Every structure is written in structure tokens, then in C-alpha cells.
């Protein structure tokens, strides 16, 4: 067996905490830029939220998009966006929500179908009426806020409140910058995007919890060490695991991004960004922020982790 590879060699001691000012400047700039982009560009809400019509068609030969554009533009359906989607004979058509009730949306779908005829393959037809769109926005917001709330409460419960607050700030940082990414590239923001963001939230918090766990452990191990030093040690000790997991997850996501088809590509992109930024924020945001909240040390559940070299007793692992 060949010798296992280590991305992060043992004994790595990068001064993460000492460099926190640089990280904070970067993060604040990132969040501000995201807000700016969201305000200036806005998010390109898909039909899930805005209501409207989406059709994916496959033409026999390469699609003549300008011709399609003028053909469908002539139907007087308001804003019609046409783009290549996946291959050169695959086209995505998005039509704004028609004024009036659901009835008008259905008529618009029929108008498009009769204009394009039977020569094209209708791979996907979706229409969301104004009623449902408003409800989906509500449900999406509720899911995000609810999940964040539950995560905060859980961390609060398992750690000290300072940890919960820092984890939440790091999480908000990740989510806002993901919104910013979507405002920047103008990709469609739809229900799967919300799912991706919630997954990012779960992943990012997962990462943060692992480092926090180590901080808590080190609190008991090194009673005399300064907070800054201890945080930095904790980050470095878990760095190997953090990078390993992020890397394997990224490998899987890159596979989806490149081979999973056009529908999943945006979904994967959001998550790729989320993994990168979530890993960054666990290391550079969540833990260094703890410095400013001064969590108490040593009064968590009494747990004897033992000195190195002995097997610890009484930890709450499963008993065999």
C-alpha cells in the first residue's frame, strides 16, 4: 500500500486568527457588494416566484434563436426571453406572467404552441399562476427563516450563546453572498435555488460545528492558553478534515455541474459556491468572531477527555 496523501501536513500552523482583520475586510466587502448587486441588478426570479410561463423545446436542427425571438415576439405576450439551454438545438423560452387570471396564462401557452407548431419537441412546459407564485415566495422565505432559527437554537443549546451568534453571522454571510452571486450572474432564482441555499446553510453550519467542537474540547485541554491562540490551534487541528470534506463534496458537485445536465447546472453552481464560501466562513469568520464575544470557558458539561496516551472514559459515545 502506498503512503497516504496529506493535503494539510501535520503541524500546520497558519495564523488564521491573527489575519482576521484582512478576512473581515474581505467579508464585509463581499456582503456589501452582494447587497449592492441585489439592489442594482435585482434577482432574476424564475416563474416559481414571479408566475409566468417556461417552455423548453428541442428543434430538429440547430435552433435559429433570432428567428424564434421575432416569431414569438409577434404574439404580443410581453417580455419573452429565449436562450440556448444545454445544446444548440435546445431552447428555453420564458414568458412573463400575463395580466389577468390563470386563464390568460393558459391561452398564452396555447398561442406559443400553435405558433411553433408540431415540428418542435416540447420537452417541458411549466406555468405558474399569480396565486401560487405568491404562496411559493412565502413558503420559500418561511423555509429559510425556519431552518436558520432551528439551527441557531440547536447550537445555542449544544454550545454557549456566543457560538450560536457567530455561527449565524457566518451563515448569513454565506447566504447573502450566494444571493449576490445570483444577482451578479443573472441566473434564474427558483425553488431549487432555495433548496440549494438551505443545503448550503446545512453544510456551512456542519463545518462550523466541527471547528466549534474542537474549540470546546481545547477549552478544557488548555486552560491557560489565550483565546486567540486557542482558536487558531483549533482551526489548524481541524483544517485537514475541513479541506478533505469540502474537497470530496466539491468533486461530487463538479460532476453534477459538468455532467448532470442543464437543469441541474445552476443548482450545482449555487452549491459549489456555497461549499467554498461556507468553508471559508467557518475558518475566517465564525471562529475569529468568537474573540469579540468572549465565550466563557470551562463551564460546559463536565467531561473528562483524559490526557494524551490514555483512553478517555465516560464520553458519550455508543457503548458496545
Amino acid at each position, binding site marked *: 500500500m502506498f503512503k497516504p496523501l496529506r493535503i494539510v501536513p501535520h503541524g500546520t500552523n497558519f495564523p488564521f486568527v491573527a489575519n482576521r482583520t484582512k478576512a473581515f475586510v474581505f467579508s464585509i466587502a463581499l456582503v456589501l457588494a452582494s447587497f449592492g448587486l441585489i439592489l442594482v441588478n435585482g434577482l432574476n426570479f424564475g416563474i416559481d416566484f414571479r408566475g409566468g410561463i417556461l417552455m423548453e423545446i428541442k428543434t430538429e436542427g440547430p435552433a435559429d434563436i433570432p428567428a424564434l425571438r421575432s416569431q414569438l415576439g409577434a404574439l404580443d405576450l410581453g417580455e419573452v426571453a429565449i436562450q440556448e439551454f444545454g445544446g444548440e438545438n435546445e431552447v428555453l423560452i420564458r414568458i412573463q406572467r400575463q395580466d389577468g387570471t390563470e386563464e390568460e396564462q393558459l391561452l398564452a401557452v396555447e398561442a406559443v404552441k400553435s405558433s411553433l407548431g408540431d415540428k418542435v419537441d416540447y420537452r417541458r*412546459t411549466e406555468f405558474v399562476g399569480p396565486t401560487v407564485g405568491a404562496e411559493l415566495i412565502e413558503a420559500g422565505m418561511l423555509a429559510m427563516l425556519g431552518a436558520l432559527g*432551528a*439551527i441557531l437554537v440547536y447550537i445555542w443549546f449544544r454550545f454557549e450563546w456566543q457560538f450560536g451568534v457567530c455561527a449565524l453571522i457566518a451563515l448569513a454571510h454565506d447566504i447573502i453572498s450566494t444571493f449576490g452571486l445570483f444577482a451578479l450572474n443573472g441566473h434564474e432564482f427558483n425553488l431549487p435555488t432555495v433548496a440549494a441555499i438551505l443545503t448550503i446553510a446545512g453544510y456551512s453550519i456542519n463545518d462550523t460545528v466541527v471547528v466549534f467542537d474542537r474549540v470546546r*474540547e481545547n477549552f478544557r485541554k488548555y486552560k491557560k492558553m489565550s483565546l486567540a491562540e486557542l482558536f487558531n490551534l483549533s482551526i489548524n487541528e481541524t483544517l485537514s478534515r475541513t479541506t478533505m470534506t469540502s474537497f470530496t463534496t466539491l468533486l461530487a458537485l463538479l460532476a*453534477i455541474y459538468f455532467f448532470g445536465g442543464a437543469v441541474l447546472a445552476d443548482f450545482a453552481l449555487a452549491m459549489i459556491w456555497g461549499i467554498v464560501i461556507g468553508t471559508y466562513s467557518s475558518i475566517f469568520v465564525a471562529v475569529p468572531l468568537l474573540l469579540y464575544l468572549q465565550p466563557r470557558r470551562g463551564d460546559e458539561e463536565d467531561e473528562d477527555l483524559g490526557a494524551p496516551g490514555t483512553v478517555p472514559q465516560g464520553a458519550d459515545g455508543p457503548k458496545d
Partner: protein
Amino acid sequence: MLQFQPWKITVVALVCALGVLYAAPNVIERDLTQDLPSSWLPGKKINLGLDLQGGSHLLLEVDVDVVIAERLESIVDQARRNLREERIGYRGLGVSGDTVRFTVREAEELDKARDIVRRIDPQTETQTDVGNVVRISLTEVAIRDLKTRAISQSIEIVRRRIDETGVREPTIQRQGDDRILLQLPGVDDPERIKALLGQTAKLTFRMVDTTASVQDALQGRVPPGSQLLEAADERSGAPRHYVVKRRVMVSGENLVDAQPSFQDGQPVVSFRFDSVGGRRFGQATSENVGRPFAIVLDGKVISAPVIQTAILGGAGIISGSFTVQEVQDLSLLLRAGALPAPLQVLEERTIGPGLGADSVAAGKVASMIGLLLVIGYMVVAYGFFGLLANAALFFNIALIVAVLSTLQATLTLPGIAGIVLTIGMAVDANVLIFERIREEVRNGRTPMAAVEAGYQRAFRTIVDSNLTTLFAVAFLYFVGSGPVKGFAVTLGIGIISSMFTAIMVTRLLVVLWLRRSRPSELPI
């Protein structure tokens, strides 16, 4: 944590074996499973979502207000008749908002009028107001009952209509207060189904009011007890409007059968009444020979033939200017019964079979590539232990597929992404453990002690970090819809099974290996 009692080994091995067994039908070719004695082999495959197998998802809203309005209208009709019988003068009888109101001409008759109308419908509240006004409104219980019944009836009728079209395995579910969710696998052009559901198909046979002129009625002078209806037939030459009595001779509820057929080369619908309907129709036609009656469908007059002789056989035909398709659809609708209220399509998502197949193919490729990358990387990073983690990963995937197949949970496109993501994240628990073991080895522990401490210390972190992710997933499940829900299901199952495989399966493999080879140094 290194002790494994034999029964525990058996349980872990059994879970893994069952996982592989139940996952197997998804991998084995269909014809092969048919050759096998399938009695002992679980045959369920993963249920593909509409976005993967192609099909149509329709969200319908039942317009329940129509049912309430109809009930109020019928109270108006009854009140008119009763007040006339009792010779009580009234004016302004009609529905305003959610109440029926009228004004009694003579103040002394107010109480009598109120008592008369109070008896019409036990589920109403009747009040009198200044100016001799009587107001009748439905109780809240009545309104709730009406709505509930309208929804359950609608679901039943929708189910019958869909069944008549021959769509296989449709899902028809109530959603929320007044919605119906319809999932139609394999339907890539739902236009016909939408058209079928777009009609309430209320059929009535009523007399034409020959005493009233259409001209007068068009100017708003409709005799009480009659109404002005449009003709369904829009050809020139045919009359555009009819004045028809409100009173229904027989309605579609009394039909037992309706079939498309031909008369004089024209497509027509032939129908049969049940015994009650046949009797009523026979009586009405024998009393009205020589007068026209109207066949009214959804408020439009299909035709208004003159009654030649009494029709006593309980059967008849509906002719009109129909095409063959229209006759087929109308017979189907009449057989299935009328919807209590109109349906509105709120949301439609239709995926063609081509896109679904492409998505499945792309998902397979992405999963395989993702899997190979992760497997390769784990071996590079952890050597022999990486191999053990990969074995656990194999069982992990088998368990996910097995659980999805057994629960018949629906796998959606984002669900595939969830599985691939799980492949990436599943190794996390093992990574945590292996990194910990490395640390313990560096701290100078013996292989046994290092493995023991590694598992013990990593365990808590694994639980903490996975539980937080599960929270996010639970919210996705409860709030999300359709594909997003599918994503939450696969991710949730993946998290749980990855915890099991990392904590139990790899640990078992590591322990067995340690027992056998008693290494002096860990290859980690």
C-alpha cells in the same frame, strides 16, 4: 468501542445485506428479474418523479364560491314559490353578497314571511331588518360543509374523468383548503385533460318558456322563474339565445349511461336515465307534447327540440353540431358526472418523456463520475482505510436506494443531485474519524487505542454536525413542494444512512481487520 458482540455484527451485516438486496431490482435488468423466482426477491424499484419519467403536474383550484352562490339561488327560487303560494307581496328578492334578501310590501306580513322562508333550509339564519327587509344567510357550519363536500365530490369526479381517459396511475390529492393536486405520469400533452376538467358538465333538461320573447329578455325583461341562456351552437342561422324555465325536469344526476353514437350520419350522444329520471322525463314529455324543451349543458343550450311524443323508454339522444371528438368527450363527462364547481388550473408543469430520459441519463453519468472521483480520492488520501470507507460508501448508496425503493419515495431530479451530494458528504464522518485517529497516533497511542479514541471523540462531532444539517433538511421537506421535497427526502435518508455506515460499518471493518492482523502500526 472496539468490542463488537456477535449479535451486533450480525445486525450490521444483515442491514447491509438487506440494503443490497432491496436495492438490487434497480440495477438488474427488467427481463432478468422476471426470470428469477421473484417471490423471495423484493421487486420494488425507485419511483421516478414526473420530472424524470415525464408527465404532467396540475394544481387545480375548486371555485367553492360557486357552490355557495348556487345554494343561495335555490333558496331564492324556493322563497319566490312559497311567498306566492301564501300570497305575500314582496319586491327586490335576490342574492346580494352572501345573503338572500327581499322586502315585504305590507309591514304586518313581515313575521309571516320570515317564518315561511325560515323553513326553506334548516341550515340558514333568518333576520328581519328595518324597512320590512328579510335577510337569509347560510350558517358558518353550512358553508364549511358545502365547501368540504364540494372538494371531495370534485376529487371523485376528477378521478372518474381521468380514469375514463386511460391515464395510468394518476395521483389525485387534496391540497390545502380548496386545491386538488393532479400528477399524471406519461402525459406529455395535458391539453385534452385540461379541456375535460375545464367543464363542470352540468346537464339539465328544462322547458323552453314559450310565453316570453327573446327580444324582451335581451332587454332585461325576463319573466320570474325563467332565465335567458345562450346557445352553444354558434353557427349563423341558429338562434343565439333562448328563454328557458329555471325549473329542472331532469338533470344529469339521473343519467346511468352515455355513449357516443350516430344518427343520420351525425355524431350524437345517446343516453339512458335511471328509473327515477326515466319516470320524470316520461311524465314531463307526455304533459308537454308539441312544446320545445331545452338541453342545457353548463348554462348553454345545446339544442331545443320539440317534443313529438311522450318519451317513456328512459333513453334518448342529444344532438347538436358536434364533432366526433366532442361527442366522445361529452359522453365521457356525462358518464363521470358533473363537477359541483368549476376548476381553475393554478399551476402546470409538464415534462416530455425525452427530457426525463435525458435527465436520468445525465444523473447516472454524474453520479458515476462523482462516485469514482470520491472513491479514488479517498484511497489516495487514506490508503487502506480509504478502501474501508469506500466499502462503507457502497453500502451507504445501496441503503439509500433500498430505502427509497421500499418507501416508494419519489426520486426527482434535485433528488439525484441530493444523492450525488450525499456521496460527497457521506465520507465526511469517516474523514472526521480518520483524522482523529491520525492525531491519536501522533499522540503516541497504540493502534488499538488510537482507533478506539478516534471513534469515541469523533462520534460527538459527527452527531452534532449531522443533526444540524438534518434540521435544514427537515424544513425543506415540510415547506418545500414537489421536486424540492424529493431532494429533502434523498438528502435526509443519505445523512442518516451515512451516519450508520460510518459509525457502524467502517468501524466493524476496522475492528475485524485489527483483530485479524494485530498491526503494530496503522497505515493511515
